[in-house]
């Protein structure tokens, strides 16, 4: 044993200690990390850890009413798919539907009742209890009702169908109020009105794209957001690929190439607002060529007298021979289908234009036939009268509010403060309403003005049902069931209404304890309306099977029925020149707002998946932008990223420029959806809202907002930003993806053809020879020829 001094001893003890500590930690680091096994205190029904349970329900992200199947594990929703048994979605689902999960799990959901603490709009709320809030609200409502002031209650909801709509109807009738309004920015009010005028019923027919051989679409972005995009996309795919070897031809007419337009054989840009005139020019040609032989031929001749090719060409900017070519191919390809929507339907002449589109279907005999327009049977259930409110109805409500006729506004999952033009003054009118109650799930711009917030479940937590509109040509009903236990202290809208009714002492009129029981009660009627089936002996069996399948109804479509429009209708056919807000001299560009792919009318802005979804055509992610034709951009000396002020007669916003070749010169396109001030962390303070600068221009017949009828001017601000884009450069860089081919006239209907450069150029009013095909091929940054895309 060597001599060791005190100093060395302490050193060695220290070394040993450090070594032992290090060894201990080394051993610790090699252990498995602690994982927990956390069982439910009380497991949900049909729960089995490790095994997925699928529940069928109905999507509520937009108004198409797709059937969904939700995969749940351990009582949590994990994935949403389309319900294969549901005839609308047939197992498919769009991106917005997929991201319904992010509505459910959104960190910005309102987690319990709130009472306003600060001033309105300051977002200072105190938490409240359901018991107290409902008791007080019911008390107020009952006092108003017994005093005969129930008419002072307005109930404003998003698009609601099925028995929830019936329940709201019943509730409001007991209150004695007729102020029940559904507000959806994208509601096709003008299409309902056009169908009422032409077909005599204010319903949406089934547009049988799947079996059509020729789809002539006037502005209807039917793969994007028109009516029932999942169903249309499916039908379109089949019409182009999966059918009997004949590929349907598809022509899209719109000022800015949409996702749908990009899939067309031929994309034609008519001057904004003149699509209806073009439709009548085509109709005139069909009649002139003897394509229509009805008894009322003379009436048609008279009605179409003013739509000779030359005058149509002059107004629309589409060459006369193009009009003739479209007319001839549409008439000779049977069955064909003409549809209209989007900017065509939402202009000052929207209803007239859509009537003209209906007329085209009639002239070539495509009404009531497979591959054409097929009338839907009446919806399986739900109220018959539509409560959908257009701009003018909303303005009436605002006027009532200003006049003090509205004592209480109950708003539920609709956001008019965001979705109505500022010029409509709706937000200001809210200040004159003494009490605003919101039943919304999220703290959106409208709910921010509320005095009392009673948050409702998301659709994945509630009971409901739906009779889709447009239907699919036969009766369909679907039940929407909760797929998870409610995450927060929220309640279903139907349950809130029933609870209010009970507390108001209206038990006799509302004998159902909750929405589920109300649905069961109502579906007894649906059950007895069907043909008796020995396999389904009683209602309970029926109900279980409907809830399990998620859908109920017929399975076959019965086209048919002679149709002839009334004589007065034919005489009244005609489309006037579009009227814009803003003089052309002062505001040289037509503003073309469009629903963005993922954000829809703004409702998708709080879903991170949708925020991260690049725009399908421009590849831009996040924020707002305006699209300009290279010619327009060059005139103004603007290039990508230059920030400009978009000034309309109604207001001004700022956004960067994106040079986009597939838009007419003279038109400024802008996606709707961004520009939220509230609506949670993912939505607010991104981009701007083009609805803010829309003039409060209506389609006169329906009072619907004519959102395509505002002119703007562009004022460079000198600012610059880098747009975030996927896919790099929009130029082809010598890859020859875009080719300009001279196809002349289509060789045979149904064969995919390419419009000639001259044709496409003429369609947008560019002097093509001056630019020349060579220049277009030259990969210049400002590719000034509107392109026809050939998929290679």
């Amino acid at each position: 044993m060597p001599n060791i001094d005190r100093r060395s001893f302490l050193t060695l003890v220290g070394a040993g200690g450090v070594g032992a500590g290090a060894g201990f930690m080394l051993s610790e680091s090699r252990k498995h990390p602690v994982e927990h096994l956390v069982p439910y205190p009380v497991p949900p029904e049909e729960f089995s850890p490790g095994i997925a349970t699928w529940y069928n329900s109905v999507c509520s992200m937009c108004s198409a009413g797709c059937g969904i199947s939700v995969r749940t594990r351990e009582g949590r929703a994990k994935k949403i798919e389309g319900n294969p048994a549901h005839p609308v979605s047939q197992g498919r689902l769009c991106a917005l539907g997929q991201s319904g999960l992010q509505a459910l799990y959104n960190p910005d959901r309102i987690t319990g009742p709130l009472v306003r603490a600060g001033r309105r709009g300051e977002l200072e709320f105190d938490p409240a209890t359901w018991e107290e809030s409902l008791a007080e609200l019911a008390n107020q409502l009952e006092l108003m009702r017994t005093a005969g002031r129930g008419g002072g209650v307005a109930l404003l909801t998003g698009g609601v169908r099925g028995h929830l709509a019936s329940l709201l109807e019943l509730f409001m009738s007991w209150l004695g109020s007729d102020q029940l309004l559904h507000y959806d920015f994208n509601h096709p009010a003008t299409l309902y009105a056009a169908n009422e005028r032409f077909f005599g019923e204010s319903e949406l027919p089934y547009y049988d794209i799947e079996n059509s051989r020729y789809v002539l679409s006037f502005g209807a972005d039917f793969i994007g957001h028109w009516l029932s995009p999942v169903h249309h996309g499916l039908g379109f795919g089949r019409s182009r690929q999966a059918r009997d070897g004949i590929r349907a031809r598809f022509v899209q007419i719109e000022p800015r190439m949409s996702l749908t337009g990009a899939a067309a054989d031929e994309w034609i840009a008519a001057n904004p607002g003149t699509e209806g005139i073009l439709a009548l020019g085509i109709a005139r040609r069909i009649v002139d060529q003897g394509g229509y032989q009805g008894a009322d031929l003379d009436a048609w001749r008279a009605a179409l007298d003013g739509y000779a090719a030359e005058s149509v060409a002059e107004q629309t900017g589409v060459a006369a021979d193009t009009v003739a070519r479209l007319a001839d191919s549409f008439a000779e390809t049977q069955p064909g289908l003409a549809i209209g929507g989007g900017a065509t339907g939402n202009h000052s002449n929207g209803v007239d234009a859509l009537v003209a589109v209906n007329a085209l279907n009639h002239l070539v005999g495509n009404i009531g036939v497979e591959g054409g327009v097929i009338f839907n049977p009446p919806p399986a259930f739900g109220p018959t009268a539509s409560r959908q409110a257009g701009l003018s109805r909303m303005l009436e409500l605002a006027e009532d509010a200003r006049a003090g006729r509205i004592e209480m506004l109950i708003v539920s999952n609709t956001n008019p403060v965001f979705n109505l033009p500022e010029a409509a003054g709706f937000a200001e009118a809210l200040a004159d309403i003494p009490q605003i109650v919101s039943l919304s799930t999220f703290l959106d711009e409208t709910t921010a003005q509320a005095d009392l917030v009673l948050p409702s479940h998301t659709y994945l937590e509630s009971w409901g049902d739906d009779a889709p509109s447009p239907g699919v040509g036969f009766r369909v009903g679907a039940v929407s069931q909760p797929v998870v236990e409610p995450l927060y202290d929220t309640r279903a809208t139907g349950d809130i209404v029933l609870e209010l009714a009970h507390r108001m002492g209206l038990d006799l009129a509302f004998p159902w304890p909750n929405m589920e029981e109300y649905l069961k009660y109502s579906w007894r009627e649906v059950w007895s309306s069907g043909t008796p089936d020995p396999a389904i002996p009683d209602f309970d069996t029926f109900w279980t099977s409907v809830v399990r399948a998620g859908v109920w109804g017929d399975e076959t479509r019965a086209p048919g029925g002679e149709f002839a429009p009334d004589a007065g209708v034919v005489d009244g056919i005609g489309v006037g020149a579009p009227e814009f807000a803003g003089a052309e001299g002062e505001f040289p560009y037509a503003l073309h707002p469009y629903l963005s792919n993922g954000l829809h009318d703004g409702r998708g802005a709080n879903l991170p998946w949708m925020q991260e979804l690049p725009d399908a055509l421009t590849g831009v992610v996040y924020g707002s932008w305006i699209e300009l034709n290279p010619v327009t951009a060059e005139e103004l000396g603007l290039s990508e990223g230059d920030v400009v002020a978009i000034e309309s007669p109604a207001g001004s916003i700022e956004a960067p420029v994106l040079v986009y070749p597939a838009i007419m010169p003279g038109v400024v396109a802008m996606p709707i959806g961004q520009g939220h001030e509230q609506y949670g962390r993912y939505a607010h303070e991104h981009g701007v809202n083009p609805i803010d600068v829309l003039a409060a221009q209506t389609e006169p017949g329906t009072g619907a907002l004519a959102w395509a009828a505002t002119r703007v001017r562009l004022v460079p601000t000198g600012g610059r930003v880098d747009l975030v884009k996927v896919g790099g450069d929009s130029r082809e860089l010598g890859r020859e993806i875009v080719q300009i081919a001279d196809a002349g006239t289509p060789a045979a209907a149904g064969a995919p053809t390419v419009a000639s450069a001259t044709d496409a150029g003429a369609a947008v009013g560019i002097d093509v020879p001056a630019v020349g095909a060579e220049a277009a091929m030259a990969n210049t940054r400002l590719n000034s020829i509107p392109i026809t895309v050939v998929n290679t």
Partner: protein
Amino acid sequence: MGVSIVPTLKVLKPVGMIVGVGFVGLLVGYFANAAFFPGTTPVQPIEFSHTIHAGDYEIPCLYCHTEARRSPSAGVPSVNKCMGCHAIVATDSPLVREVARHYENAEPIPWIKVHDLPDFVHFPHNRHVAAGLECQECHGPVETMDRVTRMAPNEMGQCLTCHRDMEVEHGIDCLTCHK
């Protein structure tokens, strides 16, 4: 002129001793941890005894771990299931009172996993139960354990040995477990 390394060694000697003692300390620390704080026997939030339930009272494994029969995951019973018996049985035991408190507050019990496979391994309990394996073959004699210990290494060799011995169809294919 000769060069000696002896002076250098003299300087290094205390350094060597420090390193040596430090290394011995490292080993002691490492094995002390392994011996006295084994990760294979975690302390559970409630000292549930399998000896009493599965040993003394001979409750079958699958009575509580029901899902092993039909699910890839055997699962642990819900608090609700515990209370199925303990609403009546041994209600005065402090441990049972603790369980009852969790039940009344609707508060889950954060049990610690003893047998844990990495996430890249697909192990379906249901198939193994259906093949007639006793739970004990992998989990050891749990019915004798007051505090459950991981007996088997649960490493790939164990899987493969068994799959070979039992002549499992595709039993040693990569994609059978790693999918």
